[in-house]
């Protein structure tokens, strides 16, 4: 395994020192607004397309996201118990929501696929319930003045590891995780699952996201 010692996703617990990149950015941020688009090469393809939708309202980028995600969103809705027509309508609604909500996307905290999954999950829950699903408050956005390519890269690398870990699972384990995320398991069924085999990757992502938040807070408070 490759250790990224300077990244916010390095997995050993150390004193919470802001990374040099962050410290530098924060110093600049006090004087002048930074350019908002982080270095494109540090992002996954889909994340880069979503940032283009967000910042440039780029229709061609949206069309490419549609080609990848819409058929998978429909598959997700079919697995979640919706009929063919409804599943397609919901897939379309999710893609339109991606277009309209793109200004809320923050590549420091989520890859495009995770962000789109969250929207799709809410729409699926919506189909079965009168009340709209509760939405956590937005974090104070820092993407405007504090782009941090290192963070985005680190998140992307962890997601690559996560995919590899998922691919390496045996059939039963992979099926169980897929079923849970696709709406085929109840809360009781999920809470019976223990020792989830991808726990290590998940906790590393968690730790990285947590640390980033602490670093930013530390920088803001004098």
């Amino acid at each position: 395994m490759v250790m990224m010692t300077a990244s916010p996703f390095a997995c050993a617990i150390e004193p919470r020192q802001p990374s040099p990149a962050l410290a530098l950015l924060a110093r600049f941020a006090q004087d002048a607004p930074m350019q908002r688009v982080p270095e494109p090469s540090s992002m996954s393809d889909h994340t880069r397309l979503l940032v283009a939708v967000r910042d440039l309202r780029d229709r061609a980028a949206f069309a490419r996201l549609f080609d990848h995600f819409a058929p998978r969103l429909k598959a997700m809705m079919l697995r979640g118990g919706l009929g063919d027509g409804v599943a397609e309508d919901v897939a379309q609604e999710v893609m339109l929501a991606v277009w309209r909500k793109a200004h809320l996307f923050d590549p420091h905290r989520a890859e495009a696929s995770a962000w789109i999954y969250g929207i799709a999950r809410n729409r699926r829950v919506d189909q079965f319930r009168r009340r709209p699903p509760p939405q956590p408050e937005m974090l104070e956005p820092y993407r405007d003045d504090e782009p941090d390519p290192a963070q985005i890269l680190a998140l992307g690398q962890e997601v690559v590891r996560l995919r590899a870990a998922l691919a390496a699972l045996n059939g039963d384990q992979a099926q169980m995780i897929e079923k849970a995320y696709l709406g085929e398991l109840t809360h009781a069924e999920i809470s019976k699952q223990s020792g989830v085999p991808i726990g290590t990757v998940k906790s590393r992502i968690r730790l990285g996201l947590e640390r980033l938040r602490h670093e930013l807070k530390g920088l803001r408070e004098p």
Partner: protein
Amino acid sequence: MSDVMHHVPQQILWAHAAGALPYGFSVVVATHVSLCDACRAGLEAEEAVGGAVLDQLAPAALGPDLRARTLARLDDAIGEPAPPARSGIFPGPLVQALGGHPPRWRHLGGGIRQQILSADSEGSLRLLFIPPGTAVPEHGHRGLEMTQVLQGSFSDATGRFGVGDVQIADPDLDHIPTADPGQPCICLAATDAPLRFRSLLPRLLQPLFRI
């Protein structure tokens, strides 16, 4: 908020990320996550797995004109409502569950007040107002109970719970939560089954108050 001591277990964050939680629990989790950066990071990690699962799914066939119809609708001026904002001690998801109104308290006796936010076969969600030093009648649980503190604090045999903390009580726990001295304790409580009270009077009143 760095002083949160009692967090949402990862298993429940997972169920929330998967959209499998009953409504009441999902409001408690979204409320807690709005107050607790550690649990927000935990939730985002679970959602990262959801994204990976979505990405690897075998694509389903789309209707031939869906792409064109979707692209044609990009200019529709339907705004997405912004996520609700915090109001005083109430985080955004709770403001959303309250329909944007301040709480409408009903008296339960002993100075305790509540507002039911939802009650159905999935369970119940309610806001509780407990005066300082007052105990909630001893009760057990048939299912799971999640209690998120929004103001003040309460204590029971398992510890002290302050603003930001969430208590997870399962069927094994019989407890007498008591508001600590100082401010009235206001909390958001969700269950997936009715509570079991030890004494007769609360039991008789239970259907009336739907707790």
